[in-house]
């Protein structure tokens, strides 16, 4: 069973990230996947997140307890959710939006300037798809084919091609990163002065 959290701020499409990944896994990769999102005031503006639980069998507990993959697309989200990441987990960040502290334990860190890439493609709204492509490449939780198949219905049909291009951009960048070492990213980031970490709020149900 694998637990994934996509996080960022409202409007970045992090819920969509969860939906696309969950749909890809459930409908095209022959896995069981539930997707839940944070609902309510916290979903509007500030840190918001979606959580995907992936399993070979039916998911019995639909919330994440100790995520092994965290995608953080904003500083707030990073501060809020990084502390719950497993010691041996994978952290994926938007390198332009998240200034991170030195990675804990054996956490593997992957970074991509997804928002900048999206802006270069013409619109930052594609940042989530760039990120999804990157996520797909570096985690291998889901196949890129399934992800692309999941897009129709979840992105506006007139932008389907652009979304696929954004996905591929992130995916290619991810493969490149994998072929090099990911330590570079972590070290480079650790040199920048880390912002003072805010204490992660105890979240209900979190174990």
């Amino acid at each position: 069973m694998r637990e994934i959290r996509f996080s960022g701020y409202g409007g970045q499409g992090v819920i969509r990230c969860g939906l696309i990944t969950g749909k890809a896994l459930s409908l095209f990769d022959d896995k069981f996947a539930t997707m839940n999102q944070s609902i309510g005031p916290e979903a509007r503006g500030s840190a918001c997140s979606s959580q995907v639980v992936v399993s070979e069998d039916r998911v019995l507990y639909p919330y994440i307890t100790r995520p092994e993959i965290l995608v953080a697309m904003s500083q707030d989200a990073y501060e809020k959710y990084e502390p719950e990441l497993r010691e041996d987990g994978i952290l994926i960040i938007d390198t332009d939006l998240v200034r991170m502290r030195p990675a804990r334990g054996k956490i593997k860190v992957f970074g991509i300037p997804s928002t900048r890439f999206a802006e270069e493609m013409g619109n930052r709204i594609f940042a989530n798809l760039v990120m999804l492509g990157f996520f797909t490449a570096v985690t291998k939780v889901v196949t890129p084919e399934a992800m692309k198949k999941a897009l129709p219905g979840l992105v506006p049909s007139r932008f389907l091609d652009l979304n696929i291009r954004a996905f591929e951009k992130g995916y290619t960048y991810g493969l490149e990163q994998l072929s090099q070492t990911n330590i570079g990213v972590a070290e480079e980031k650790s040199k920048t002065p880390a912002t003072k970490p805010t204490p992660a709020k105890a979240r209900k149900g979190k174990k």
Partner: protein
Amino acid sequence: MKKVKADPKGVLTGAHYLDGDFAIAEGGLAAGCRFFAGYPITPSTETAERFAERIPYVGGVFIQMEDEIASILALIGASWAGVKSMTVTSGPGFSLMMENIGLACMMEVPLVIANVQRGGPSTGLPTLTGQGDMMQVKWGSHGDYEIIALSPDSPQECFDLTIKAFNLSEMYRVPAFIMTDECVGHMHEKVVIPPAEEIEVVNRKMYEGPKDKYLPYKPDKDHVPFMVKAGDGYRFHTTGLTHDERGYPVINAECQDWCVRHLVDKIRKNAHKIIEYKEDGMDGAEIVVVSYGITSRVAVKAIQDARKAGIKVGSLRLITVWPFPEERIKELAKKIKAFVVPEINLGQIRREVERCAFGQAPAIGVPHCGGWVHNPDDILRAIKEAAK
């Protein structure tokens, strides 16, 4: 009662990735629901949104009413016009509907209400889960009556059980309820919608005799009276007052006895046909976990862990919470050591289990005030405790 294949117009055949709220709307459309009146309330609103979006392509009416009272009244009106109708709500809206859920029972009108439960009482936890309306659905309106309530544990069951709720509602001329919760309502998961010809849909039995001989409340052999619809020339009368077979008000104890017993008997005497539950590992079970909805899903994890620890645990998952499988609980109580009843309230169904067990076996609750689903470990602990 007429069993037919579903109208393909409303059936979105295929594999989808939907949340429970959406799946309820799709279940309704597949069952032939063509009228939806509702009022936005978290965490149920997505059902109304989905219906509003889909219905123009299917052919039907969506109307956002001024409140939940208006919503249920509009449903009763639409149902008397012969159209399958549904609404969706959550705690506060459900409370507002109560008086007229009684009217629907009294007038014997088929309709479906989904309650995506959240933490209560009052405004409580609008965005977080609960199962605190399980007794309200049964007893919330005044007087004696019976309803049917189903509890899905997944978006797939939200779809399947909404169809079942419509079928039971039409079969017994009674409001039927989908008692789900925020967790299932907002959980996305794979939902497979079969082809229309594989979906069986029940339509209410319509009276076809001479127009002046129609009696709207004369029970048939199965205790359920025949129905007609407004505009077909029967010029019938129906009322929320205690009434006779003609639907005319009769204000005395004799008629009250006949009228109320009929409303109750219609369901109680057919309960064996309505009740559905799923059992697992009952052979030699010492402990039986009785659960429903999302809690039954989380409980599976605890049951698996308990079995690993060598405890003989069976599972009784309620699909229909009301009518309650009284006989089965009675039977089990004689054989087992204890029931464990986890639920996201402080013991509503636990008490029902206790009542049915009649002192033969204790019913140990795993209470939870709401806001989150159980930690499976808490259920496991209760099972271990019960097995001691």
